[in-house]
């Protein structure tokens, strides 16, 4: 979240789109209730289904799954066309005046530089600003230059007329305009809209671009950095935010530092590329500090073994030969027989990943599989024949499965990072049962065995393992407290103020913030973003002071929020260029008091940079402003464009009806064996989407009796019209099939899913919850992901769970 849960109460309008907050985040949803009760806020829900969130909404609009970019692009067009934008905000705080290079173009659904063979844009150099002789981006404050971002964006979205958008999305025109007009009201400086989204945006082949489109909308309305504004990802697992913060993705390092590619063998070039100079005069370009974060990380990992002489161990870092080894890539490799073993820690791939048949076949090719989990997962039982629910031939599977029971969060101390970016410490509530051990204990044991094997037997590349600094009190089981202190980091020598020479911290003391990090090896920090969470004051994550002196819900004494205990990102933008809040009465966040920045939140800015210095609020960007134009950062292009899901019920992209190449995302990676099992609308006519229910949490709570009582048995949701056409009544058993397999479930026949008129066709949606499987106390069911396609978002490769095609028959 750019903002945080409690801050939702400051919103005047809550847009839930690409998510179902009441259903999936019922506890956080209380802040929507607060906004409605005490701020007279309205709630607008846009979703293919009339959800539990819609049940308490002021306005609901149906939309076809996978068409959100069309909806948002149309809204962007509408706001620009009717001039309902926050003018002063966009002129000063965004890239609207920036002039783009001449070579940039967009034609027939493709940007310049596309290579069909590799399904990518290998050369994105023209997707950038025109620079002047000083290396600064050229701008046109009048916004009239034909290649300024404002004009390009206006042109790009001029195709997204209300009529065409309504045809693509299936949203009735009148209702769509009602929603757009309601949203447009927040272009006023004192009114804010918050966007709450979740996997309903993420899990599409154009998911990242959907989220970008939402962010662009918020920029146009001046809602970023504002109380009650922002683009707010509601994270699914309680610590999934922590997972990304700590870089548990194949191409990341902790704190959103990035792993080098294999063509980046030079350390200085690696750093320079990630530490860009400002693109406009007087801008901060905070990533210029990249080297400090990186060196401090390497010191935390390797201690005395790294120094300037060995480039802080740069050669020990893996260099990626692929953009990323995401789950689809890894399982495709496994499926192709290129992997021997797999460690599966805290998740359940056979249930959680698309195309169960492929995952099952892939696991069957392993020599060994290690599953670390508190529960018996389907993955650990993938070899077990369970009726039709897991119809495998056990005798033909030779994979050895090791099951290592782990503790769950309530059985250990530690911190969880929630959607709000708060690190909240928690304390053990119970002793672990049986032989369950913390994951750290298991990983520690594995590390020691590996290291001693390298010591005894050598190896091709032992250095990264042998040199790892493992100075924990009990090496077999480092404590959560030790690890948390390490993430924060400490001074390795006496740290002196560069100006006064005064000793700020003595060697060995905990750092108080990432501003103290240095790139000379004198500091260590396991995750620069977490620096400040465990200082000499102690464990700030354990704070529970909810006082709120300004009544703005910022509660700076509750837990600790990254970065620097800041609750709302980009909050400098909540004040106008002169440094005063856009709305001094209801939206006071930070302001310039004549000598420094201060306020109800920790200012996200240079504390002493006066407004007349003209430093812009988006300090992480080298241009200092927020981007409508993504430059070369997105796989598909700088502006989000609507592409159809890979399985589309209409078979063409109404924006480019004559170009099959751009029906679906041209820059999404597709493996050949998966291309073959995509289905077509002729055979599988219905648009399907998968989702979670409030009664269950993923595949865990079907092990719990009370959750299972509340939602005992697998079902699918069908609209009344479709059900009556197929002769299906509520409670009947139905078979839902895609080109990859089938499931059978109880039919819930509902008014809440209505047929939509899309591109001249009637499109029915089928709603498929995903919680059931073949272990647990709930009634056995089929793995929903038997049905879903094995294709991911063009940037993140998050699978397209939310849009695919099925057929439905009565059993």
């Amino acid at each position, binding site marked *: 979240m750019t903002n945080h849960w409690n801050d939702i109460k400051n919103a005047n309008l809550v847009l839930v789109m690409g998510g179902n907050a009441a259903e999936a985040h019922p506890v956080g949803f209380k802040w929507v209730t607060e906004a409605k009760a005490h701020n007279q806020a309205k709630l607008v829900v846009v979703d293919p289904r009339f959800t539990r969130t819609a049940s308490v909404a002021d306005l609901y609009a149906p939309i076809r799954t996978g068409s959100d970019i069309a909806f948002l692009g149309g809204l962007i067009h509408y706001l620009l066309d009717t001039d309902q934008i926050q003018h002063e905000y966009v002129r000063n705080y965004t890239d609207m005046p920036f002039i783009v290079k001449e070579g940039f173009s967009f034609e027939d659904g493709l940007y310049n530089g596309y290579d069909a063979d590799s399904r990518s844009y290998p050369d994105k150099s023209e997707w950038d600003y025109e620079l002047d002789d000083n290396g600064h981006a050229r701008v046109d404050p009048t916004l009239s230059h034909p290649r300024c971002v404002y004009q390009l964006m206006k042109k790009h979205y001029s195709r997204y007329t209300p009529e065409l958008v309504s045809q693509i999305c299936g949203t009735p025109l009148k209702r769509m305009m009602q929603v757009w007009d309601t949203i447009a009201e927040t272009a006023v400086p004192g009114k804010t809209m918050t966007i709450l989204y979740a996997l309903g945006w993420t899990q599409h082949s154009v998911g990242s671009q959907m989220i970008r489109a939402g962010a662009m909308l918020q920029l146009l309305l001046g809602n970023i950095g504002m109380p009650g504004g922002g683009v707010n990802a509601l994270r699914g697992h309680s610590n999934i935010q922590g997972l990304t913060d700590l870089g548990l993705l194949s191409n990341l390092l902790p704190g959103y530092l990035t792993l080098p590619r294999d063509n980046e063998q030079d350390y200085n070039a690696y750093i320079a590329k990630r530490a860009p100079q400002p693109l406009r005069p007087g801008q901060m370009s905070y990533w210029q500090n990249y080297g400090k974060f990186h060196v401090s990380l390497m010191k935390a990992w390797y201690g005395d073994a790294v120094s300037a002489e060995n480039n802080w161990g740069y050669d020990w870092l893996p260099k990626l030969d692929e953009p990323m080894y995401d789950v689809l890539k890894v399982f495709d490799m496994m499926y192709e027989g290129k992997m021997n073993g797999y460690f599966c820690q805290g998740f359940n791939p056979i249930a959680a990943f698309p195309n169960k048949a492929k995952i099952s076949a892939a696991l069957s090719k392993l020599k060994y599989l290690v599953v670390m989990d508190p529960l018996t997962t389907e993955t650990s039982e993938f070899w077990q024949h369970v009726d039709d629910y897991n119809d495998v031939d056990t005798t033909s599977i030779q994979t050895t499965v090791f099951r290592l029971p782990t503790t769950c969060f309530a059985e250990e101390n530690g911190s969880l990072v929630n959607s709000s970016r708060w690190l909240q410490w928690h304390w053990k509530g119970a002793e672990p049962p049986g032989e369950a051990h913390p994951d750290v204990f298991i990983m520690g044991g594995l590390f020691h065995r590996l290291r001693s094997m390298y010591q005894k037997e050598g190896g091709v590349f032992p250095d990264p393992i042998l040199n790892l600094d493992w100075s924990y009190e009990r090496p077999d089981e480092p404590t959560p407290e030790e690890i948390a202190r390490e993430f924060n980091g400490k001074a390795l020598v006496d740290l002196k103020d560069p100006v006064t020479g005064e000793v700020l911290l003595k060697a060995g003391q905990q750092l108080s913030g990432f501003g103290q990090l240095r790139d000379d090896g004198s500091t260590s920090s396991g995750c620069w973003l977490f620096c400040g969470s465990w200082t000499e004051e102690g464990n700030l994550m354990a704070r529970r002071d909810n006082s709120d002196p300004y009544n703005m819900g910022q509660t700076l004494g509750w837990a600790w929020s990254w970065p620097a205990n800041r609750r709302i990102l980009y909050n400098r933008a909540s004040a106008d260029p002169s440094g005063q809040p856009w709305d001094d009465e209801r939206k006071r966040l930070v302001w310039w008091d004549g000598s420094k920045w201060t306020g109800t939140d920790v200012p996200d800015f240079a504390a002493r940079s006066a407004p007349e210095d003209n430093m812009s609020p988006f300090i992480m960007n080298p241009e200092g402003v927020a981007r409508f134009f993504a430059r070369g950062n997105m796989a598909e292009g700088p502006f989000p464009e609507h592409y159809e899901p890979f399985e589309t019920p209409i078979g063409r992209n109404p924006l480019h009806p004559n170009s099959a190449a751009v029906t679906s995302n041209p820059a999404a990676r597709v493996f050949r064996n998966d291309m073959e099992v995509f289905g077509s609308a002729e055979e599988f006519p219905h648009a399907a989407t998968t989702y979670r229910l409030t009664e269950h949490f993923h595949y865990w709570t079907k092990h719990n009796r009370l959750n299972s009582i509340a939602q005992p048995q697998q079902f699918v949701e069908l609209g009344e019209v479709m059900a009556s056409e197929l002769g299906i009544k509520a409670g009947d058993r139905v078979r839902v099939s895609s080109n990859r397999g089938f499931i059978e479930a109880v039919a819930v026949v509902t008014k809440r899913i209505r047929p939509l008129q899309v591109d001249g066709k009637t499109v029915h949606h089928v709603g498929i919850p995903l919680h059931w499987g073949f272990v647990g106390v709930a*009634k056995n069911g089929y793995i929903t992901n038997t049905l879903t396609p094995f294709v991911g978002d063009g940037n993140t490769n998050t699978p397209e769970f939310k849009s695919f095609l099925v057929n439905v028959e009565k059993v």
Partner: protein
Amino acid sequence: MATQDIIARSATTTASPSVRQFDEVAKLIDTTVCIGCKACQVACSEWNDLRDEVGDNVGVYDNPSDLTADSWTVMRFDEHETSEGDLEWLIRKDGCMHCEDPGCLKACPSPGAIVKYDNGIVDFDQDKCIGCGYCVTGCPFDVPRISKKDNKAYKCTLCSDRVSVGLEPACVKTCPTGAIVFGTKDEMKEHANWRIQDLKGRGYENAGIYDPQGVGGTHVMYVLHHADKPQLYSDLPKDPAISPLVGAWKGVAKPLAMLAMAATAAAGFFHYIRIGPNRVSKEDEAAVEHDAAQAGTNSPDAGGTSDER
């Protein structure tokens, strides 16, 4: 609650103690804020240590699909199309309404099996319950359920055990959106009025409180978007009243029944006066002793190991 807090007992005519005076309490369920998450269902089962069966999906979101002796509250989901063609998903937490004039208590023939406390809570004392099911008939909201395990009636207690020590009911404590609130009945009415004002501002002209007077008002109240049509909410009765049969049993029929019982007693008395005590013959006694001996021999305790699986 303590016995001195009881102001009404089933099948009892003696006056109740009135040592302590509490304010009347109420639980207010705001259907317009409720998101149907069922956390209240789970909290109820947790607090009261109830574990119902893992059932079946019968084609709706309601699970369990009805109240049972082990599920004292359930969410009922109703889909409603407005005259403008818009959809409303009306979700109502169903359970005991804790009537001011409780039909169950009136119907119950077992002394003290159903009591009402002076704070308004209606509670069942299963120890005294005889499982006759009259409370089920007596309830205008179809709430009590007879357990198949012990043949006794069960329903929501409004967490009388928690309330008696100053805690709110478990469902209130757990509700994430604040759709369920608890306090004195006056406070709850005030809260409801504040909510109704908000709803009217959002276009719900008929928003209102559900506190039906046919049962003297209730200690569980609803805020409804459509207070004029409570039936939309999974058949919440518009004008609930105690069944005339219960009225008849306690009203007209009861004296008649008493009369009949008196007549039976009188008949027995006159029989004794005129004919004398019944006598048991020697043959009768011998037969009874023989049966008892037979029963002893066949008792499974004596040597039975037939079912040790």
